[in-house]
């Protein structure tokens, strides 16, 4: 699997390259600033990109913008964004094209190598990987706004876990319920959010998007 990396701190960049290579990824380019990341994303069209939000030259959200711009050029280009902090606003922007293949994780999550690699794979396959902290921010709110208020507490829990990128089986294990119960919940969620039958993965992304927009 071909990966483009965008990270300006040499220590972290080398660490990530080593980590990804050890798990069978091929790092085709590691950019250390915004403009060269943009260039690399568009020329290599990698299977997945791992990008730091804050990059030179502006040291603002250069990396995030590069990723969003690249996805406009190459629709559905899988991008996993890493950051020292999470902002619901950014999660929404990443997901707003409704195509999936998006991850947004705290940098600390890298230290749990197994989960991190799994998240990279999931994003490459078009799934989502939202940081539990983003989800926690959402759960902390009174979900009063439409259309989320139509969901039951359990369904909101399920859609939160979907946002983190868990499969139905993983959700079942986490909530101590059966797979069948989970698919019943997910179908209810899709119905309540008015998401018509289509590719299952895409509906999951749209449900997560609706969730983040609530």
């Amino acid at each position, binding site marked *: 699997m071909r990966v483009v990396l965008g990270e300006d701190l040499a220590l972290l960049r080398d660490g990530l390259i080593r980590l990804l290579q050890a798990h069978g990824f091929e790092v085709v380019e590691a950019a250390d600033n915004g403009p060269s990341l943009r260039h690399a994303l568009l020329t290599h069209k990698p299977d997945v990109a791992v990008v730091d939000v804050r990059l030179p030259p502006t040291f603002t*959200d250069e990396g995030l913008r590069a990723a969003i711009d690249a996805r406009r050029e190459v629709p559905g280009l899988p991008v996993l964004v890493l950051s*020292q902090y999470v*902002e*619901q606003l950014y999660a929404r922007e990443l997901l707003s094209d409704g195509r999936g293949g998006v991850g947004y994780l705290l940098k*600390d999550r890298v*230290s749990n190598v197994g989960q991190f690699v799994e998240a990279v794979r999931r994003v490459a396959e078009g799934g989502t990987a939202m940081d539990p902290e983003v989800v926690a921010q959402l759960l902390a709110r009174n979900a*009063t706004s439409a259309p989320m208020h139509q969901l039951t507490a359990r369904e909101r829990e399920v859609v939160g876990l979907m946002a983190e990128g868990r499969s139905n089986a993983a959700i079942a294990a986490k909530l101590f319920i059966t797979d069948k119960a989970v698919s019943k919940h997910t179908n209810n969620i899709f119905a309540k959010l008015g998401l018509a039958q289509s590719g299952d993965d895409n509906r999951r992304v749209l449900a997560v998007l609706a969730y983040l927009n609530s």
Partner: protein
Amino acid sequence: MTVVTVQPDTVAVPFARPADRFRGTFWVFGVGVLGLAGGVTLFTLAVTFIGLIPLVVLVPATLLILGWLRRYADVRRLWCAERLGVPIARPYRPEPTGGWVRRLRWYLSDRATWRDLMWLLVDATAGFTLAILPATLLGATAFYLVYPLLFWVTPRDVFGSPFGFFMLQSWNQTFLLWPVAALAFGLFWTCTPPLLRAYGRLTKSMLAPRDRDRLTARIAHLAESRADTVDTQAAELRRIERDLHDGAQARLVALGMNLGMAEELLATDPDAAQELLVEARESTGLALSELRALVRGIHPPVLADRGLDGAVRALALAAAVPVEVSVDLPGRLPAPVESATYFAVAEVLTNVAKHSGATSAWLRVVHEDGRLCVMVGDDGRGGADVVAGGGLHGVTRRLAAFDGTMGVASPIGGPTIVTMELPCVLS
């Protein structure tokens, strides 16, 4: 000191219609007579009782009279604003809390008190003269107009000499005075508006704060807000130091210890070493999340990334109630203003979530006439108040450093609207 400008709600040009000259004349005549009587009385009383201060027993009476003096001047300021369209600011220092001595010192050390006293004299002399001129001209008009009648009904020598030196010989000649009446009326008609304005200006020149006093007040305000700012900053730095010391630093120490022990155990007891490594990883996670919280409190990353616009949107998303946001900023604000505004909005939104019981809120940010204006409203139960040491008080202090102000409109039953304004330029 706050300089409160007494501003009438309506009218800029009072007595504007031609017929208003008559009303203006009667009004200013009344004020002039009152000024003479009130001025002389108050001046005498005030000077006497100030002179009697050494007889300590009479100090309460002195305070009472000085209070009357201020109220009397305030009423005149209000009248000048409402009737003459000449708003006059109050020049006094803010009222102190405390006993007689402090209040007495407050009155006597304020230059405005002595200027008020001077004004009483000026108002009773020059002011009085100005004030009765329109009425005098109008009176002269009427007098010379009815002169023939007076001449006719009274014995010849009573009204025989209209100017003192010129003897009228017959009733017919009295009609020669009508042109004089016309002249007096012409003077009245043209001179009354300028006379009214002159009366307003005279009052203003005596009762408005002088530039020097204004500057003194400004300096006092700046000194106070600067001291506040310095205090707040020092407290912030102490908090950051404590947070780092008890948080991230302590975690890193523990981490180093765990790693060292793991290193030792690696050869002999790999299982125990692995346990320590897991613990070490968890403690990096905790250290990082503490640092994150700390950084957010110093300068939120989203503010650095997106400016105030993006940052308040992020705040609104994270708020406990849905917040409708509208931001209209054609440029970027200076970084310190951005930061102060961000934290102010954060505090107000926290208040909304904690105390208002609101189900929705709105947030508006605009920049006009060189001022940033931020309004936060909610549909909660109202009754919000700025109490010392409370969150909103902190906001006021934060904004004061930038010459900003905050107003809270929060009737019982709601809704609450918090308005923050601070002068700044966009880049």
